[in-house]
């Protein structure tokens, strides 16, 4: 909404040269728009979703950093409708996105939302949680997630208040999971079984996958990136190991954390190549005694043209990989 207002401000200036009488009309128009905006805030617009398999709906996030302009809606989020209940998989990057996801669910079913499943604890996946709080909804996550939220939560809230502004951050609450997954857990939505699996440290130290047994659809969270450069916030060696185990999951399609819905396990190819290249480049730099700053500038440079947001994340991935690989 902030974005829309600033556009109006500019058009006002344009109108002003025509004279005071037009200005009066403009004020009326503005007040009308103001009223509409307030209304749209009370009843959020549905988040656009598509049905990628029967009863499974997904919103594909924008390949961008979280900003005020995109409501933090950069990650893929979705929901699964069973015979008696609904499960939400990730809640989005702002309370507003969470509310819009809720509106998309309510436009399709009035069954209760029994579970909100976090694939991990990053802001673009958990900031919308408050939209689903209450009404017997249980929050589900990796056994490490409460600890990660405790360690990082306040930092994320402060940092994204700076980046996205107070208007989007007011109302964002971090809701730790109460149903913790250590290994596998099956959830029943009524004639629809979801298999949740916690993974060793890979993209993060709290990655969880969700497999819908009926349609063989895998929500991989940020264990899988496509077209959007993989982001390393856990362990590069761990992630490469997890990719091997993950590829054995009997799915037909994957909903990655970022990027398009794709066939399985072919979707892993690009990400595996990127992480292997990064690890191998960093390993060579460590061996020849290069400082960490050189890794940030040069590692995995051959991958630049193959990924969106390469310049936003590659140096960081290299820094992180270096600090891990130098202990080998």
């Amino acid at each position, binding site marked *: 909404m902030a974005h829309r207002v600033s556009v109006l*401000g500019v058009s006002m200036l344009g*109108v002003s040269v025509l004279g005071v009488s037009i200005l009066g009309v403009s004020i009326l128009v503005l007040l009308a728009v103001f009223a509409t905006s307030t209304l749209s805030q009370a009843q959020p617009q549905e988040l656009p979703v598509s049905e990628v398999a029967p009863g499974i709906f997904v919103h594909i996030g924008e390949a961008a950093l979280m900003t005020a302009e995109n409501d933090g809606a950069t990650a893929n989020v979705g929901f699964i409708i069973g015979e008696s209940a609904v499960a939400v998989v990730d809640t989005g990057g702002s309370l507003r996105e969470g509310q819009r996801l809720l509106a998309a669910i309510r436009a399709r079913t009035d069954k209760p939302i029994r579970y909100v499943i976090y694939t991990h604890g990053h802001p673009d996946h958990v900031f919308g949680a408050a939209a689903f709080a209450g009404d017997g909804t249980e929050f589900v996550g990796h056994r490490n997630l409460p600890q990660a939220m405790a360690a990082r939560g306040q930092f994320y809230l402060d940092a994204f208040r700076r980046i996205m502004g107070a208007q989007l951050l007011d109302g964002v609450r971090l809701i730790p999971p109460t149903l913790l997954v250590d290994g596998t857990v099956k959830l029943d939505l009524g004639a629809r079984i979801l298999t949740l699996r916690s993974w060793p440290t890979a993209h993060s130290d709290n990655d969880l996958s969700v497999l819908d047994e009926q349609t063989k659809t895998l929500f991989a969270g940020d264990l899988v990136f496509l077209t959007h450069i993989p982001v390393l916030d856990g362990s590069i060696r761990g992630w490469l190991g997890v990719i091997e185990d993950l590829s054995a999951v009997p799915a037909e399609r994957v909903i990655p954390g970022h990027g398009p819905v794709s066939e399985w396990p072919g979707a892993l190819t690009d990400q595996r190549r990127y992480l292997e290249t990064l690890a191998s480049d960093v390993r060579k730099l460590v061996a020849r005694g290069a400082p960490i700053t050189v890794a*940030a500038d040069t590692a995995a440079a051959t991958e630049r043209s193959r990924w969106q947001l390469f310049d*936003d994340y590659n140096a960081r991935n290299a820094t992180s990989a270096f600090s891990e690989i130098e202990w080998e």
Partner: protein
Amino acid sequence: MPLRHFHPLCIASLLGVMLGAPVAPAATPEAYNPWPGLVQDIFNNRPMNDGADVIAIEMPYRAEDAAIVPVTLRTKLPPGDSRRVLRITLVIDQNPAPMAAKFELGPDANVTEISTRVRVNNYTDVHAVAELSDGQLYMTKTYVKASGGCSAPATKNADEARSRLGQMRYRQFARAGQGPASGAREAQIMIGHPSHSGLQMDQVTQLYIPAFFVNELKLWQDDSLVLSMEGGISISEDPNIRFTYVSNGAKHFRAEARDTEGHTFQKEWKVEDSGI
């Protein structure tokens, strides 16, 4: 005429206020400048001289990973200068614990470069203050933008964080263009340590997790001090210090570290004669 110009502006900004639109760009530095207070708390209000000719600080303009931001400190005293750098203090103004590290430079080791990695929580000035043998403080500074995205100044791998506790590694690097005969060395010390900040609350118990980090590190060649560090929680997990020094011909390099729980870690390495 001026009225016509002013009206729309006023109304636009009024509406902006009504709708709660952000007036300033979202990513501005903090308005409050903590530096004067830090000069008082850390340096007892001693006068700060311009350090441009004495010390340099290098950091990336953007903290790519909030938990691991490389920083290099380099002394710039010309060869003929009779003064010596006694200590260098690194201050990250906007961090919860701004005093990141205080380095003491060994009297005979001629340390001219120190690189380490720090946590950066915010958009912040980072100050390096050198104290010289003339008794004066010399200050220089740089500015770092906090990282966006999902990185945080916290552990990435809770399962592994403690597994390296107390491990120490020493490594010597070749110095380009300088043979071993010059005595110039470049080396690195790594200490496995989870370095919990203590600023996070346990969500279950609602108690603050106690801080746990390396607060003292001393490096020696035989019995002569090369470098010591008084560390804070702004030093990254698994503290890593890379530095230059001049060999005194010692055959052994020794490191002693202590953390806030009173653990002491000690290790000694044979210095390779080749200097590589």
